């Protein structure tokens, strides 16, 4: 029982952290049809910023600053690496995204000297609490709550505000929205800003749980978040969250299966197998709308 609770707790928190990254993926993909490979690395940079800024500043200043810097990074990446390629083939943009990811990882290696870094122990989040006899961190418990709040806020933003309407319009049809007078570039920028801010918040929760940061730490969570976004249905925010939770829980369950079965090494592989199965049998995911092919 205690074991089941602990596995479930890990799963939900892992899933919640994937969800925060996945929202960024799904929003960008919904609008630009771009797999933003650099998103996981933005998440990693947010983690590093957390270390460097917290080293000299108190947490109540450094943490908001982390969000600001990450948002700036996301904005700059979009403007420098994606905006000039707006009319280029989709493959070029994706290659540009891979290039940015490569750049961020190499800069991180250079800056950290290649040594793994340790994330600071954030107040409250790092503290331990007991749930049904299982010790766990506050970050684990707070993650799902935070995710729910953020998702509600985001869906309100998208469904109720003007910019949200613009986002929906752009993701429906890029060209027509432009003709209708929507400022495409600012809509895209807002998307990247929201995505990066969520990645920054995600990084705080994730690295409080798993403190080691190395240059490629963002790659795997990034890919898994993308799988979550696909699983939930690209473009759908609740879908991304549910997809991420399912993947997080499934992964911890696989890791937690009896070691005699010797299958725990396939936790990552399972995620990708799931991706292939979903793509082949239900490409629109759980909640995705039937996409009309944009030739």
């Amino acid at each position: 029982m205690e074991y089941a609770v602990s596995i479930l707790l890990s799963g939900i928190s892992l899933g919640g952290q994937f969800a925060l990254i996945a929202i960024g993926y799904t929003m960008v993909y919904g609008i630009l049809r771009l797999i933003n490979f650099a998103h996981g690395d933005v998440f990693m940079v947010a983690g590093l910023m957390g270390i460097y800024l917290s080293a000299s500043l108190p947490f109540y200043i450094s943490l908001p600053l982390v969000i600001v810097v990450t948002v700036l990074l996301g904005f700059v990446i979009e403007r420098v690496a994606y905006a000039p390629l707006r009319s280029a083939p989709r493959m070029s943009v994706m290659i540009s995204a891979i290039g940015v990811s490569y750049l961020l990882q190499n800069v991180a290696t250079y800056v950290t000297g290649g040594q793994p870094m340790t994330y600071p122990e954030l107040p409250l989040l790092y503290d331990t609490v007991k749930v049904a006899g299982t010790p766990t961190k506050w970050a684990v418990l707070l993650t799902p709550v935070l995710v729910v709040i953020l998702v509600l806020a985001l869906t309100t933003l998208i469904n109720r505000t003007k910019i949200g309407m613009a986002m929906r319009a752009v993701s429906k049809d890029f060209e027509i929205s432009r003709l209708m007078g929507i400022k495409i570039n600012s809509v895209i920028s807002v998307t990247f800003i929201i995505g990066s801010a969520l990645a920054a918040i995600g990084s705080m929760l994730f690295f409080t749980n798993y403190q080691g940061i190395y240059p490629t730490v963002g790659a795997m969570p990034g890919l898994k978040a993308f799988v979550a976004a696909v699983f939930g249905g690209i473009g759908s925010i609740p879908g991304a969250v549910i997809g991420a939770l399912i993947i997080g829980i499934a992964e911890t369950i696989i890791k937690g299966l009896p070691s005699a079965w010797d299958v725990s090494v396939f936790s990552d592989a399972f995620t990708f197998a799931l991706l292939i199965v979903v793509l082949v049998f239900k490409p629109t995911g759980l909640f995705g709308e039937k996409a009309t092919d944009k030739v």
Partner: protein
Amino acid sequence: MVNQTKQKKTSWIALLCVAALLLLVIILENLSAWTGVKGILAPTSQLFTVLKKAAVYSLVAVSMNLLNGFTGLFSLGQAGFMLLGAYTYAILTVPAAAKDQVYYLYGGSAIRYSVIDLLGKLFGSSGAGGAVSLILGVLIALICAGLVAALFAWLIGLPVLRLKSDYLAIATLGFAEILRAIFQWQRLGPVTNGANMIKQFPTFTSFNIKNAAGREVLRLSTFVPFLVAAACIFIIVLLINSSYGRAFKAIRDDEIAAEAMGINLFRHKQLAFVISSFFAGVGGALFAMYVANAQAKVYTSTMTYEILLIVVLGGIGSISGSCIATFLYVAASEWWLRFLDVETVLGNGFKVPLLRNGFRMVVFSVIIMIVVLFFRQGIMGDKELPDLLRRRGRQSKSAAAEETEGGHG
């Protein structure tokens, strides 16, 4: 008609150039031994490391270009197919005598024989017979490596090739990750050696010819990867210039139009995917020979990205571009830019800023970003080397023809 004879002529010239290049490689590698001068081009020079690695990578890059550049299928599974090739080659060629030691955790391998040993029984295992069985054995193993990769490509292609561009990319990437986990699984240890490397199989240096006293008389360790890569690339070029190649390009340019022209989309995509993976598998086997081991850990998505970036640098849709870019990329990353990683103090005590471990890769990725953003055509665009030469000769001729040639892209 005239055009055709002209094309034939250029392909003869190209072939001659390749032959000359191969000869040059042999001469370069043996220069210090033949001239007896120690200072020039010692066989240990970084040049040969670069040449070997670049030869291997150029094959993989061209195989990726066949898919991404010529067929318009964006696949990121290259590392996975290389892994299959590397393991197939290694498993088939580790000498039976070395198996117990290599598979030390599993009490020997489940596959007891090695191709080369079997051939050795046929031709004799020393002297000329040994050479024959080595060459034939390696050749067979290389082909098997390609075939295994192609088989897996066929299987995985059945579902994933129906996906659209970026979904295909992520699905193939995922497939490569799954393969890596499977090959590292301890339960498969007797075949894949689990976490451990497979090693002690014939590598490029095995082809250096030694005399009876054990001294090297002719070094062929750089020539071999060049020869294999050149032969494979030659086959790919033939394929691209065939009717299949034209169908691939039609699919790349417009799937719907191609289908309307009567091209079976799925079959042609599958063909391109399987052939590309075949050569990626051969490339993987060559890579295993280059690093002298096979270990699943190495074949990560980073490797795929690296090869993709090479293809982009060279120009998507240009074979010669991919080859040139590979040599530049490998030479720059392994050799020319190494100084960026070393802290340097100039004569007057001035410490050059920024130079420190890791700076090389930062500079490198900045260069790549600049190419991706501002020189989207890469080095060659979608032209080949002969195109460039021909164009200069024809400059005086009609400008209209020029425009149709260089207009797209």
